[in-house]
């Protein structure tokens, strides 16, 4: 917070004015709130993906790549198959694409003992290059000048949950909330959920207790990637209606912050993604004040670093 105000002062902008703009731009009107909720949706889903892997002790930095592939695959399927059937198939395609993109990282972590962070960083870069190439060439819409797929007809998209202007909330958000509730229940009440978290807490103890650690890790990574892919699919089907170069403006990184701040409780992913959604929506209105877009990135990084420090301090005090 201090750093935030300091940077604003350095930039010659009144912090009070900036805070006002940020809040009115993200929460000040029905339209602004709808916009914040729209930003929250991908963060919630990608955040859940990261969170799931994190509980198994895996750091899925590759959520960005899985999100991209999921969004891309769902756009292709939704364009090929029209109507509600296409919508369902497109979501499945998103999940499968995301899970497949996480597969190498999961396999290398589980059976080859290579660090998942490094593999997922590398796979992110490959995902960006791959989708950039495909969308600029082979699957580019014929009548478009930019690198984008054709637009999915409205009947093949996720419908609005509430559409009475100025309010507009898409059902994608509801899907995210349901998934979050299901995950919280699964982790608390199911044996598999307990095993997953046992592996995350202490892998060698879990192994000793008879849990197949490699298998749990492999599956955790696949599910995490699948959720990331679903996030991309919902982004395509609910908001964008197409896939294009630069589809994700860094949702992958922000969702890492969401999952880290949520700690050990899946339900906390909701308020944290809301926080980042509000920051991101408000950051856009700060652009008009002349605050560069990098500032929100900077704040997100600081928040993560500081919260991690505080958590460590607490853990050290308890011990």
């Amino acid at each position, binding site marked *: 917070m201090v750093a935030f105000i300091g*940077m604003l002062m*350095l*930039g*010659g902008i009144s912090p009070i004015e900036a805070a006002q703009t940020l809040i009115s731009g993200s929460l000040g009107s029905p339209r602004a709130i709808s916009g914040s909720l729209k930003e929250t949706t991908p963060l919630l889903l990608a955040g859940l993906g990261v969170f799931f892997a994190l509980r198994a002790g895996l*750091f899925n*930095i590759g959520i960005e790549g899985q999100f991209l592939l999921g969004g891309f695959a769902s756009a292709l399927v939704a364009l090929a198959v029209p109507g509600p059937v296409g919508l369902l198939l497109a979501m499945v395609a998103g999940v499968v694409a995301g899970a497949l993109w996480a597969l*190498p990282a999961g*396999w*290398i972590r589980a059976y*080859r*003992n*290579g*660090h998942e*962070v*490094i*593999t997922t*960083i*590398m*796979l992110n*870069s*490959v995902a960006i*290059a*791959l989708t*950039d*190439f495909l969308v600029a*060439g082979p699957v580019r819409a014929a009548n478009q000048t930019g690198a984008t797929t054709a637009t999915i007809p409205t009947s093949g998209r996720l419908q609005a949950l509430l559409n009475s202007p100025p309010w507009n909330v898409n059902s994608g958000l509801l899907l995210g909330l349901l998934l979050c509730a299901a995950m919280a229940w699964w982790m608390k009440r199911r044996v598999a959920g307990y095993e997953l978290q046992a592996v995350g807490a202490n892998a060698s103890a879990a192994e000793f207790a008879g849990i197949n650690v490699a298998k749990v890790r492999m599956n955790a990574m696949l599910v995490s990637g699948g959720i990331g892919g679903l996030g991309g699919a919902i982004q395509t089907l609910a908001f964008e209606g197409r896939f294009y170069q630069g589809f994700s403006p860094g949702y992958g*990184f922000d969702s*890492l912050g969401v999952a*880290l701040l949520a700690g050990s409780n899946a339900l906390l992913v909701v308020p944290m993604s809301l926080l980042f959604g509000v920051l991101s929506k408000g950051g856009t209105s700060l652009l008009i004040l002349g605050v*560069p*877009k*990098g*500032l*929100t*990135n*900077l*704040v*997100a*990084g*600081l928040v*993560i*670093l500081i919260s*991690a*420090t505080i958590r*460590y*301090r607490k*853990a*050290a005090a308890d011990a």
Partner: protein
Amino acid sequence: MLNTVLLTLSMATPLVLAAMAGYCSERSGVINIGLEGKMLMAACVSALVSVSHGPVLGVLAGILAAVVMSLVHWLATQRFGIDHVISGMSLNAISAGATNFMFTRFSDPDRSGRIGTLPPLFYQACAVIAPVALILYVGKTRGGLWLVASGSDPEKARLAGLQPDRIRLFALVATGLFCGLAGAYLVADTGVFTDNMTAGRGYIALAALILGGWRVGQTALACLAFGFLSSLNLLFQGTQLGGFNLPSEFWTSLPYLATVIALAGFLGKQRTPAGLGKT
């Protein structure tokens, strides 16, 4: 032919410098995915200071910025016990945000033309000297042995009377120094600072380090190979190779794909330092 060689060398220079930065850090036991951010910060600061105070101070300021970032990483990982990956990621985000902020705020929009910098040859010389110096340091001196010891098994190093924390502090200062040079080189090479100008070079350097099995010589060779790849990409962009047009995205993906395959253990045995990330 000569063209390709020169292009390869200039492409490989920042990679070698950044990979050596990663070598110092990871050999001492600190996971460092923040190379990208340190380079970017150094590039931005050196560009800004070069304009106002001349090239020599510009380079020094760039190095200082990268060293400061490195020290934050040291504090976060060694003093506050933050996960090395989380710290590295947030430092990358902070750099991306801060450089965007600083440059749009403090640079002079009316200014055009190149920023005055030290000649690129200076950095290329550094990129040749650094690996040689590191090989000698690690292979021939006591300090080098300590460095590797604290990265291979910090617990045993501690029992032998070393202080891994302190060794890592020095290692991370060296990391900052090399990242600073790598970042300043990018500005010297192009004559400008642009948003996110490192464009993944920090990650490619990390890839080279992994492919090289955390060994200096092999890592430098991997950097040269990656430099060669990107020069091929530039030279053959848009031309047909044997009737087949390979997209430039394919070339840019190759280093990353090679790293994933190497981590899967398909290219010889895994050589990750045993104490990486341990306290």
